[in-house]
């Protein structure tokens, strides 16, 4: 396949895939090392160090970590305020305990290619988390199916909301800035610098791209912030979308986040070899779905 996807070559996609795999390797490595007593800040710092050690030179956002009921984004963390900017997102002093769910979320850039991933797990056992992680499989399939059919993005997001209602879970991504189910990710210039500026943990170059997309989208009738609202009443825009359905039930939340590649007439997940898909396969859920 040599055609371009919104000016992305196959080689570009391969580089994006490599960064996404790196980010997931980081989450898996740090997740496996988590023990009761680790704080969110320590976990986020471990991820940051790991990624910098592996050649990361910029961020969409620096690593986040949420433990326990903070995974469900209820209460303060779930409040929309300050124009969608919510300081409760930042990793805090919450300490991990046995059987407590955790979410690790990081978005590193390397050589101009960016990943944005979400990974969840538990030290011990948490049946609610297992349930939610299983439930997330249907969302991955639903989103892809609808985007392939060129369904308007707002309607895709509303379909996700309805699936949540049917599953009896809350779409907690509504607590993200601008209630986004997904956001755009663009290729940056590879300037060879070893590090780049971040403000409040967000990478200036990536956020600038998002703002540029927003301005461009206003002109062209689309939005880089994909939600259930009117702003997303448009067919899938070709390019890369970091999709992050986040389900919550009571004090437990679960999510994954990966890049969806949208072309002029098709869509596909950048990579199927991701931890949550491997998990569904191990649990015998994946084949059923493919059948």
């Amino acid at each position, binding site marked *: 396949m040599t055609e371009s996807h919104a000016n992305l070559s196959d080689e570009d996609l391969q580089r994006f895939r490599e960064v996404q795999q790196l980010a997931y390797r980081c989450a898996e490595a740090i997740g496996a090392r988590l023990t009761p007593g680790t704080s969110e800040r320590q976990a986020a710092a471990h991820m940051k160090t790991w990624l910098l050690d592996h050649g990361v030179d910029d961020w969409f956002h620096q690593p986040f970590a949420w433990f326990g009921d903070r995974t469900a984004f209820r209460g303060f963390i779930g409040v929309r305020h300050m124009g969608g900017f919510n300081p409760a997102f930042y990793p805090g002093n919450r300490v991990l305990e046995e059987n407590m769910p955790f979410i690790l979320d990081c978005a590193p850039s390397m050589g101009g290619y960016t990943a944005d991933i979400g990974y969840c797990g538990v030290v011990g056992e948490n*049946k*609610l988390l297992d*349930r939610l992680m299983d439930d997330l499989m249907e969302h991955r399939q639903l989103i892809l199916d609808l985007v392939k059919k060129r369904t308007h993005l707002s309607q895709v997001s509303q379909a996700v909301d309805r699936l949540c*209602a*049917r*599953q*009896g879970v809350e779409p907690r991504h509504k607590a993200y800035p601008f209630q986004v189910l997904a956001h755009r990710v663009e290729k940056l210039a590879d300037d060879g610098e070893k590090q780049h500026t971040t403000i409040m943990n967000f990478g200036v170059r990536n956020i600038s791209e998002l703002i540029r997309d927003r301005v461009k989208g206003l002109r062209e009738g689309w939005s880089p912030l994909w939600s259930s609202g009117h702003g997303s009443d448009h067919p899938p825009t070709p390019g890369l979308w970091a999709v992050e359905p986040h389900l919550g*039930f*009571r004090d437990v939340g679960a999510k994954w986040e990966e890049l969806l590649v949208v072309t002029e007439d098709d869509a596909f997940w950048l990579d199927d070899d991701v931890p949550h898909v491997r998990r569904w396969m191990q649990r015998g859920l994946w084949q059923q779905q493919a059948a």
Partner: protein
Amino acid sequence: MTPEKTVKSGDVELAVYTWGKPGTKAKPKPVVVLVHGYPDAASVWKDTAERLAKKYFVVAYDVRGAGRSSAPDHTAAYGLEHLVNDLAAVVDEISPEHPIHLVCHDWGSIQCWEAVTTERMQGRIASYTSISGPSLDHAGYWIAQRLRRGSPAGLAQVARQLGHSWYVGMFHLPGLAPLAWKSGLDKLWPAILEKADGVRPEASETQLSDGVTGIKLYRANFARHVLKPQERRTDLPVQLIVPKRDKFMVQEIWDDLPQWVPNLWRREADAGHWIQVSHPQLVADWASEFIDFVVNGKEPTALQRARVRPERTGKKHSGKLVIVTGAGSGFGRETALLFAEQGADVVAVDINLEAAERSAELARLLGAQAWAKRADVGSAAQMEALASWVERELGAPDVVVNNAGIAISGSFLDTSTDDWERILGVNLWGVIHGAQLFGRQMVAAGKHGHIINVASAAAFAPSRTLAAYATTKAAVRMLGDCIRGELAEKHIRVSTICPGFSATGITQSAKFVGLSEEQQAERRDKVTNLYKRRNLKPETIAKAILAAVEHDTPEVPVGAEAHGLRLISRFLPGLSRRLARVDLAP
């Protein structure tokens, strides 16, 4: 009854009785051993044994000192360790290869607690059904813990139990109790039982000697174990049958049992102490249900409900059984989940079984036992089937939430007879069926239950576009007011919940008469969006339902609009009628 054989246990000869045929090597059959209490003999099991013998090989024996077994003179010979040895001797003789299932009553149960919690018979017992006889050591800890904590409620429980155990003290006085038996108590005994417990077992030839000799059981063991208790634990599956009218036992005596017995099931029966005489079929049914479960591993619904889960105690609705209709979404699902969180077990009923299953699964994840059932609440036959399943498997419910409802909107003149029948079926007949069928069960079981009917603010707010819907809801409200009056004397409470505009599945499935399918879809989306903006969450209605149960509130409007419309209908009926003319459709 004639003994089948005699088994020697040391110097003592035990008279053993059997019912049914033993299994063969190729086709082994579970062996059930029945152990009687005081002042009975093996004959007290006759009716139960005959019933159990249809499926199992059933064995009972006269405990030493009772019936046709020998009676050692020394009090010390009646210590629990000797009684356990006797049981072991019988089991070794009858079922040398396979572990047996114990069903024990009163003193039989006391001694079998010793058998299941000590090493002597390890591997020889598969399950234990215990009726009205606690471990003396558990009882010792039970008393000590309450005395140590010193809380008034705990002390009162101890005082009440001691009150029920007055005869134990008497038995320790020299001469008195034997004298009573010898002065004719043995002849009076059947009449006393009939008066006290409503049972009339066959008169026993050995009643006098059983009564006199058995006193040694108390003298040999009571003080030794109750005053200096040892820790007694078992991992065996234990089923506790608690007769609620037992005159010798307070029900709280079993409260601490989970600390010693992790695999515990508890069932209560409306019966007196001699339940195996008054209700032999019930005891046989429960015993065999438990034995079959232990043998094949499949836990029937009734046992799922009966399983004791200490982590679920101490919550606001612990131990209650709650039925919720329309539990597959919206208010119903949230209500089921909230009850589950607060300790109750739930039956999630919905016309969409898959949705009900999902609610039940979520309830289970919150720690409840939960069952999903499909029923069209408007169908008398389906609701009767549901109610009889509930009664048979789970017993009468504590709370019934008649929540299932549908919506029809539009001109009265355009509303068809079919539309009317559909909405009356679900919204009104559904409530009638639910309230009546489960109300009857509550009355029959003597349950001080609660019936919740979900109406709507439309029950008191007339509207030109809601003729059918509002009429059904007003009827539900009136129905609740009437049956509240009737059921008050039975201590069954009735509440009507009147929610305002809340976005649930009902707006997405509402029918708008006089519109094309396309127009309807558009209208549905508009109404859903409007209700979403109102943001009255199903969770809020669910919380109101739980509060209505907790505070016994007859009518609960939920949301500012519900309160407002209620006030208008009461104090400004003219305005209410004016508002009814406004077409509120978006």
